């Protein structure tokens, strides 16, 4: 068995490796090494923990085997287009682990093994924090996953697996809460556990993302979580109170996330990422463990930075995302009026325009992911380059459904990362762009953000494709983006609309180019 000094030294090495992991993420060339460093750090920390006490291996093995199978399959199999769903769901496992470890610590503190030792004030407060943050993260992440996988808060018909997950999880939460409340005997806290479990289950079955009085319930559950937390600090031996706290915080987590619109999904995933780190840090305070605190705060900081970047990229405050609803602040112009002068073009016409130009900028959006068009667009880019054209990609920070979503898809399709340019960089050189191809993006290229201060997206930084000489918009229809407003870019004098499914449109365009 390793002594505490050895174990803590290994923890320090692990913490340094985590910091190196994130430091090496600063460049694609060193990032692979960084990730390996992080994994080695985690392995060392786990090994040191296992060797630090006499172990009862049976429980550990069960947990590790189940986790490895699920995590391994998910990690190896998940498609790159599904990364938002995976990260959304995985944030929740971090939160769930924090709830359970703090719960186990509470049980252990009053078990026969430690009888007599009073629980410190620090551990009590940290347990409350783990319970609240962990539960908000756990339930919030499940909702984020459900919204991204399009089975929560939707009215349309669900596929069989979606129905199974949706109703299965609701049933599990309700049944679990009711069962635990009953076996714990009647009493105020048992009732709180049962009511909150049923409330969570009900909220998860909603077919809409709003209900009257939602903000009031949000506020009430936040206040109730804090009050229960204070009570738990005063009487930590009351385990039922802890689960009541987790239940009420769970209601808060569900409501906080369910009302958030599709456009704000990147903010929410980044925020839940941050919470999962903070929950781990709080658990570190429960069990007096510095490596949990360090790793948790690194993740917490990372999530906060990303949240901030996403908010800035939409010109919205975090409070506005969490409590406000997106919607036009002024008048929304009539779509028919805006789209009076739309010009549609065929693949042949666009191929002729592309022939002989020097610079092409491709601006992808979520539509590219939906159409799975990343490989087709790479082929188009490669062909244009073979014609002597300089091709670059302009990526808006909130394009797609999570930070960096477009970059991963294009990297998967073998697009060189130095071709992927940030918004500010492409905007600075927009006047030199001959043809800007917008692929499945809408709000992030809508010039009203610059021109109309009463618009729902007023002030949001956009990619100024309207300043390119010619704009080609590949889109299925003139339907609005997440913001629900028409886009005058589509009717601009220098814009040609190329209607069709993203992938098929690109293939048609390739054929037309080859026939030139």
């Amino acid at each position, binding site marked *: 068995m390793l002594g505490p000094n050895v174990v803590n030294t290994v923890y320090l090495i692990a913490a340094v490796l985590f*910091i190196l992991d994130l430091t090496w993420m600063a460049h694609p060339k060193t990032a692979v090494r960084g990730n390996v460093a992080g994994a080695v750090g985690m392995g060392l920390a786990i090994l040191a923990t296992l060797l630090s006490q006499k172990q009862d291996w049976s429980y550990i093995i069960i*947990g590790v085997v189940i986790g490895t199978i699920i995590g391994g399959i998910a990690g190896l199999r998940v498609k790159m287009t599904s990364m938002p769903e995976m990260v959304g769901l995985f944030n929740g496992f971090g939160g769930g682990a924090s709830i359970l470890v703090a719960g186990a610590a509470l049980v252990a503190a009053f078990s026969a093994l430690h009888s007599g030792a009073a629980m410190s004030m620090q551990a009590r407060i940290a347990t409350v924090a783990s319970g609240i943050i962990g539960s908000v993260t756990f339930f919030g992440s499940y909702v984020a996953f459900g919204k991204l996988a399009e089975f929560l808060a939707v009215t349309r018909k669900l596929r069989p697996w979606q129905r199974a997950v949706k109703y299965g999880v609701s049933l599990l939460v309700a049944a679990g809460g009711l069962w635990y409340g009953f076996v714990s005997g009647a009493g105020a806290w048992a009732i709180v556990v049962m009511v909150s479990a049923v409330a969570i289950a009900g909220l998860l079955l909603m077919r809409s993302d709003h209900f009257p009085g939602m903000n009031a319930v949000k506020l009430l559950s936040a206040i109730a979580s804090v009050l229960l937390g204070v009570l738990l600090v005063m009487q930590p031996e009351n385990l039922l109170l802890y689960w009541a706290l987790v239940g009420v915080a769970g209601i808060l987590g569900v409501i906080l996330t369910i009302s958030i619109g599709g456009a704000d999904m990147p903010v929410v995933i980044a925020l839940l990422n941050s919470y999962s780190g903070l929950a781990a840090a709080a658990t570190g305070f429960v069990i007096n463990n510095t490596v*949990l605190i360090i790793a948790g*705060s690194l993740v917490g900081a990372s999530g906060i930075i990303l949240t901030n970047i996403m908010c800035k990229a939409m010109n919205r405050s975090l409070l506005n995302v969490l409590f406000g609803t997106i919607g036009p602040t002024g008048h929304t112009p009539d779509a028919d009026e805006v789209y009076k002068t739309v010009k549609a073009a065929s693949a042949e016409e666009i191929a002729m325009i592309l022939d002989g130009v020097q610079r092409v900028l491709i601006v992808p959006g979520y539509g590219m992911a939906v159409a799975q068009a990343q490989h087709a667009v790479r082929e188009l880019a490669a062909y244009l380059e073979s014609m002597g054209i300089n091709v670059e990609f302009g990526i808006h920070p909130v394009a797609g459904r999570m930070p960096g979503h477009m970059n991963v898809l294009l990297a998967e399709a073998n697009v060189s990362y130095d071709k992927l340019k940030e918004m500010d960089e492409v905007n600075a050189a927009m006047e030199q762009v001959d043809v800007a191809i917008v692929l499945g993006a809408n709000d992030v290229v809508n010039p009203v953000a610059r021109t109309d201060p009463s618009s729902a997206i007023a002030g949001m930084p956009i990619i100024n494709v309207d300043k390119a000489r010619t704009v080609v918009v590949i889109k299925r229809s003139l339907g609005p983006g997440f913001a629900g407003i028409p886009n005058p870019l589509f009717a601009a004098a220098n814009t040609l609309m190329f209607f069709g499914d993203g992938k098929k449109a690109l293939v048609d365009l390739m054929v037309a180019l080859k026939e030139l």
Partner: protein
Amino acid sequence: MTNIVMLITVFVLAIFVGFEVITKVPPTLHTPLMSGSNAISGITIIGALAFAGAVGEAPLAKILATVAVAFATINVVGGFLVTHRMLKMFKRR
């Protein structure tokens, strides 16, 4: 320095290190940053293992901790694997 003050010191300093380091990550790597930090937040496994394996601990504590071990392992294994897959695709050609 009391224990709690020392832990808070570590917490605050680590947040500052986090801010310094992560502001340097380019937007192109933000998705792998999230999945990688997700894996790191699986560090809760350390706490979970300590309770799940403790000889003579209350069964309820061990059961809760075992589920926590499973959750955190999903994060660690899935997170590092998927991040590795993603990062290997970022190449310069």
